[in-house]
């Protein structure tokens, strides 16, 4: 192959692949809005807050960004919004172990940011992030779950709390919670956490009396 032929292959080939890329981009642009909820003024205001505080300097969104702090794409799906708001405005008041600094995020900014994160959580991301294989399989691995364990799962408690190493770290570890508190405390705390723990960021558990009793039964087995 002569140098000229190699050069022409480089230039024409690059243009050819760029043309395909442009075509795919055009097609994608027509499809993106259908794969995501409508963008309201609140969603956009929240996105502006996201940029203002350079959140991506620590967090990822859609998995892109910095890997210093958790990905926030689906965070509103498994953390209570009241908790998120308190955390955004004053992280250590919601979780004493939090590494996030208090940035001075105002109340309405926190609200907008949560609306924005609610938007990202509903974008069709081709199934990302995937559900953890082992945690998903853990509940069905040969043994029947108790009523309390099922309620613990259906209320999404593990988004914030850890039992035996599995679960979130934003709330206290519950592995031995049954040894620390009695039935009266646990039942009362489920109904109104702030009455038992000062500045508690946990939302009230909205459930019938019988379910709270079953959750408490489960907690008392954790010793």
């Amino acid at each position, binding site marked *: *192959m002569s*140098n000229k032929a*190699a*050069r022409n292959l*480089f230039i024409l*080939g*690059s243009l050819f*692949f*760029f043309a395909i*890329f442009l075509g*795919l981009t055009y097609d*994608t*642009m027509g499809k*993106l*809005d259908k*794969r*995501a909820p409508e*963008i309201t003024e609140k969603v*956009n205001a929240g*996105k*502006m807050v*996201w*940029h*203002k*505080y*350079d*959140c*991506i*300097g*620590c967090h990822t*969104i*859609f*998995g*892109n*960004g*910095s*890997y*210093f*702090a*958790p*990905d926030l794409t689906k965070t509103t799906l498994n953390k209570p919004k009241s908790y998120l708001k308190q955390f955004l405005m004053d992280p250590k008041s919601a979780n004493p*172990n939090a*590494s996030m*600094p208090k*940035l*001075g995020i105002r109340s309405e900014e926190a609200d907008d940011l949560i609306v924005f994160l609610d938007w990202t959580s509903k*974008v069709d*991301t*081709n199934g*990302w*992030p*995937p559900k*953890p*294989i082992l*945690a998903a399989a*853990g509940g069905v691995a040969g043994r029947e779950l108790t009523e309390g364990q099922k309620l613990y799962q259906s209320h999404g408690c593990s988004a914030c709390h*850890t039992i035996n*190493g*599995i*679960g979130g770290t934003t709330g206290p570890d519950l592995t031995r919670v049954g040894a620390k508190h009695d039935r009266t405390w646990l039942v009362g705390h489920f109904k109104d956490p702030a009455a038992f723990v000062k500045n508690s960021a946990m939302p009230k558990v909205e459930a019938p009396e019988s379910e709270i009793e079953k959750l408490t039964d489960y907690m008392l087995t954790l010793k």
Partner: protein
Amino acid sequence: MSVKYQSQKIAEYFYTFAVVLFLVQVLVGIIAALQFIWPSFFILNFNTIRTLHINALVVWLLSGLMGATYYVVPEESETELWSLPLAKLQFWATVVAITAVVLGYIWMGLNPQANSPIMGINPLNEGREYIEAPRWADALIVISVLLFLFINFMTMMKTKKWTGIQGTLVGGLLVLALMYLPGMFYSKSMVKDQFWWWWVIHLWVEGAWEVIAGALLAFMLMKVVGAKREVVEKWMYIEVGFVMFTGILGTGHHYYWIGTPSYWLWVGGIFSSLEPLPLLFMVWDAFRTTREARNVENKAGLYYTVAHAIFNFVGAGLWGIIHTLPQINKWTHGTQITTAHGHLAFYGAYVLLVMAMIYITLPAIRGVKSFDASRAFTSFWWMTISMVFIVLTITGAGMVQVYMERLMGLDYVAVKANYNLWFWVLRAIFGVGFLIGVGIFVIDFFRLGKGPAPAVSAAPERA
């Protein structure tokens, strides 16, 4: 060695700025590494430190590439630069603009409210990874790059001696300038925001920058071992051609999970898994060309050139392909595996490239016949061994993270703070090793050719 055209000496200005920023980048990198262990270490938060770490990297590499271009274009065109004063103006304007941007980041780091939008625009930090520079700085950067391209274009027009190397180099730089534009507008949709943002990031580092690297590799092989232009240019076209054929549609590997249609899984998976091929060609090219070389005067230049080719392939190619297929990337996306790839890829593909260009052109700029290369080798091994271990520790952290967080469902914070703690400690220690290597390099940069001439100047023939 000496320069053929006096205006080539402008390259040293850009190299000096690059070297100083390199030192800054690694210093803040160590602060960032320590913040993984103690998040509240230092007065600036991690986000500001990381922004400084990455922006310093991008700017010093660009500054180094600009210096290299100002050196190469006069030599290839066989004439002085079209306007040396204008090139100096472009240099100083760039330094002033970059300094202003950095001060803005630090101010915002101390007082986040200072970045409150003015007429809908964040004045100090755009809050978009890698291209954090605010809109006013974007405009200045574009002006600087256009001026830079204009000066080089006019130089080429003076003699109209078109060579493949300068054409490919300036073509790559033109694409680099154009691909900055998709990052310069606001989109209300985070999905579209990230879509266009990847045009900048990916088409830079896996497109335009690799084309520039291909052109400079050809130039360096000619300079160091006296390879024939006919041959190196033909291989250069084939290499940069394959960079573009695979890299353009390889952008698709960033469009798997950000809200884009699922056909990108196919496009990205197929084309990005071919991306290591041109990098492998470059390694083969470097070995084939240098194998028979005798009487190489500039051993340091040769060393860095070949090391660049190897680590470009290992860091960008191998560490990229391990997690580029969507079936794997689904689990590794957004984890430390990406960080590991980023570190080795930038070190191999671009840090070593700019350093190789410095070692090949600086002796001529300073007018020294031969120089003592011992510091160049010492810094190379400190940096390379440290970087390899930094990358291995981050890769280990990434594997633990993928297994425990993604597969087992453990919480992000638990994995980061408990299970990966020792990886962060080791990473920080190797970071200090890297800093030592950079320190030796910086000393060497400022003293090269300025001390007494080496006692045994004919030593290179030993091989």
